[in-house]
Structures are given as C-alpha cells and as structure tokens.
C-alpha cells in the first residue's frame, strides 16, 4: 500500500492521474503535463513534494558533524536561513543522496532529502552520529508537508495567498529561507524558475494549497517537475547519479568543496584517488524522436550513456543529460542509439532553459 501525502484527497478531487513514486501515491499530472510545464515557466505552478523528508539536526556538534558528512562545506553558510546543495557520499565516493541543508544557527540545521532514499539516509546519518560520538540529535519531521511554488509569478502569488508572508520573505536571496510562524519559506526549487518551497505542518497543508489555487497557482504533477528540472540541467537521484556514481562524473563537481584541506568528509579519499573519469553534459536530439535514460551515445572519444532524457516543452525538442567520455565538448556532433537506429544529437552545456527562456 503506497503512502499518501496530506494533499492526497486534494489531488484526487482535482482529477490528478496518480502514480507510484518511491512508494508514494503521487500526482503525475492533472491533465496535460505540457500545460503544467508552461505554467511554471511562464506564470506560477505548484507541486506537492510532501514525500520528501525534512530532518532537523540540533546540537553543539551539528556543524562539525555536517562538515564531515557531506561533500559541500556548511562552513560557508554564515547568514541565517542560507541553503547549500550537496551530495552525501559513501566511502567509495558514490552518492548516497543529494540534499539541501539550511543553516539556521551554528547548532541547528534543517536538511531536506529525497523520498526514495529517506530511510537509507536517516539510517546512515544515525550511524554516523553514533560512530563519531556527535553531540547532536536528528529529528525526522514526517509531521511536515512541503509545497513547491515555482514560476516568475510564484512569489507574488504566494504572498497573495498567505497574508503576512511577504514581510517575512520579500528580502530572501536565492537559496535562502526564513521562518514565518510555523511555515518555513525557502527561496529554492527544482525547476530553474524563481519561487518558494514551503515546509509547513501537515494540518496546514490543505488550506495553504487551496489558498494558492485561489491565488491562481496551477497544480502541477511530478511529470512536469521532471521536464522542468531536466531543462534546468538539474540532476535527479537514481537517474543521473546513485551509490555507484561519483559526483565528479555526474556533473556535480561544483558541489564538492575541497578548499579547506584540513576538512575530511566521507568519500573524500575516494574522490581524490579516483579523480574524474567521465563528464556529464547535455544533448539535444537533432533527428526526430525522444531521448530517454540509458541510451547509448556514440562519440569520437568513445561510448557514453544518457542518464535522463525527455521531450523539452520549452525547446520543443528532445533533450538529455548524458555521461560522456572526457574530451567530448559542447558543440560536438554525436549519435544516440534508439531502438537500433543511430540518431544525430548535439552536445550542449546544461541548463537547456531557465527563467522562462530557452538557453541551449
């Protein structure tokens, strides 16, 4: 039996097509995925992301613990509410999960992790807390729901829906959060558009969702969320990287912080020893068809593989992220094998689209 978010009944009432996602019964679309995609690029849309898990880490050693736990360095977070995207690695340098850490105080951090990896993540963190003798506690916040409101008008519509929210969040920089009563407002997202991710008590989820609908925010499913994040060049855990893939090969080197040489973190030794073996770049299909994950890519430097692929509603072409041999560069012509045929594609730098515009 799949788990349901506090907004399940709202999705059903809105005519959503539900699918199983990581053990959760989630809306994939409410009619047309493409219309939902455009709503986010052009106006404002929202996603129920309550299947994701918020964790609160609190204690005297919280900061030191996180500096050793994840590949990005929380020491660079000094402004309250500031967020950091990072991978959490295993000893082999593979990605256990990608996550966002919010700095609240030196002894208090909020971490948001993926739904499909949540149990594994919590177990790993608890094991690390014990193994390192850390003075900090990890609270699992399944009492919270999450709504991502995204699009050029997302912030204004959120303020219209939630009286008082504007004063609390108007000055937030990108990748920064503030607490507004019991609602945690973060200027973050997974679409390449401006907007907020709201984390709020479960019993406020339906009223908040309804207020956002009334303010003109279009409910959008996980289908549009996937095409939006892929256009934005954002990695999806399980597709673009997993336990066996190094962040250096997955196009996530920018999230690995080696600056403080005295800092050790889980997986660092393996990353240093193995270096970068592959690179992740974007592809645009020039022939007709649709790129999907795990298709073979033939380049002058050898074979690679697509890790995510879809039809891009913004570009009206098919796009993919692909793990390619070193030496392949943006502008190169490559071929992708689809159902036994080799189709022409062009290598580009992701993102493909952000802030309402096609970039590639």
């Amino acid at each position: 039996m799949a788990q349901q978010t506090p907004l399940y009944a709202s999705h059903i009432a809105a005519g959503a097509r539900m699918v199983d996602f990581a053990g959760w019964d989630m809306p994939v679309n409410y009619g047309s995925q493409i219309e939902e995609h455009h709503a986010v690029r052009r106006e404002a849309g929202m996603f129920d992301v309550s299947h994701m898990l918020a964790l609160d880490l609190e204690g005297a050693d919280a900061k030191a613990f996180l500096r050793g736990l994840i590949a990005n360095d929380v020491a660079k977070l000094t402004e309250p509410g500031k967020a950091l995207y990072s991978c959490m690695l295993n000893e082999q340098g593979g990605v256990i999960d990608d996550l966002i850490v919010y700095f609240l105080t030196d002894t208090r951090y909020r971490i948001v992790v993926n739904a499909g990896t949540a149990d594994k993540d919590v177990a790993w963190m608890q094991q690390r807390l014990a193994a390192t003798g850390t003075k900090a506690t990890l609270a699992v916040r399944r009492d919270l729901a999450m709504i991502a409101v995204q699009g050029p008008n997302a912030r204004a519509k959120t303020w219209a829906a939630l009286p008082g929210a504007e004063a609390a969040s108007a000055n937030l920089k990108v990748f920064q959060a503030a607490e507004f009563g019991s609602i945690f407002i973060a200027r973050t997202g997974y679409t390449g558009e401006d907007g907020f991710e709201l984390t709020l008590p479960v019993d406020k989820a339906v009223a908040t969702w309804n207020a956002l609908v009334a303010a003109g925010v279009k409910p959008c499913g996980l289908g549009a969320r996937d095409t939006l994040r892929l256009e934005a060049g954002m990695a999806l855990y399980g597709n673009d990287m997993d336990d066996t893939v190094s962040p250096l090969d997955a196009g996530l080197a920018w999230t690995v912080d080696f600056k403080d040489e005295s800092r050790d973190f889980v997986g660092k030794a393996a990353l240093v020893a193995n270096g970068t073996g592959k690179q992740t770049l974007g592809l645009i299909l020039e022939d007709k068809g649709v790129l999907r994950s795990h298709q073979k890519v033939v380049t002058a430097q050898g074979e690679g593989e697509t890790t995510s692929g879809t039809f891009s509603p913004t570009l009206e072409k098919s796009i993919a992220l692909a793990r390619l041999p070193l030496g392949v560069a943006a502008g190169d012509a490559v071929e992708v094998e689809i159902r036994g045929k080799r189709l022409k594609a062009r290598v580009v730098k992701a993102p493909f689209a952000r802030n309402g515009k096609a970039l590639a």
Partner: protein
Amino acid sequence: MNTPANLRYTASHEWVRVEADGTLTVGVTDHAQEALGDVVFLELPEAGRVVTKEEAIAVIESVKAASDIYAPVAGEILEANQAAVDAPESVNADAYAAWLFKIKPANAADVDGLLDAAGYEAAIG
C-alpha cells in the same frame, strides 16, 4: 471512458475500424492516450510492409514514456497517417480521429478475433 461501439479493439489498446472494402484503420484508444499523457512523437510503419499479428510495428512516445503499437492482425500496411506524425498531439485531442495506419488483413476472418467495445472495457477493468 470513451469506447465507441462501432469499433473493434485489442487488449494492447489499439482500436480498429473495419472499412467497407475490408481494410482496417487502426489507432490507439482514448484510454491509451489518457494513460500515456501528452503525445510528442510517432514512428509509423511504411506502406508495403508485411506484418504479423501482435508484431510491434509502431512507436508512440509521450513526454513520459515510449510505448509500442502492435499490428492487430497479420497483413500488409497500406498507408501511415503523416498528419498524425506531424501533429502528435492530435492523438490526445481525439484518439479516434487521429488514425495511425491502414492495414489490409491477410485473412478477413481474423477481425472476428478482436474485442468489441464491451470486451475492451472489461479487459482494461
């Protein structure tokens, strides 16, 4: 659910219209287009291709996923619908207007093995 009574169906979600000359016009059902979501690409068989029953002969891709389309009967492809290839979204707009290919059955009696509307609705539960 929209399942016209004048058509025949397969359990793999093709609809089949038996024309006056005995040829068959084939598309995907309304149920199929709804399950697929926004259709963005079609790859249809070429005229003259000889196909066997239940052979995967075409591909329909939505934003979400790729699915095969199967020959409802053995026969020869007479024509593919280029208008649908040029406007794949027409399958979502009206799955029964956006036919995909026409086929001449090798054996006219094979049509009798296809589902009727009630049978198809029962099959998809």
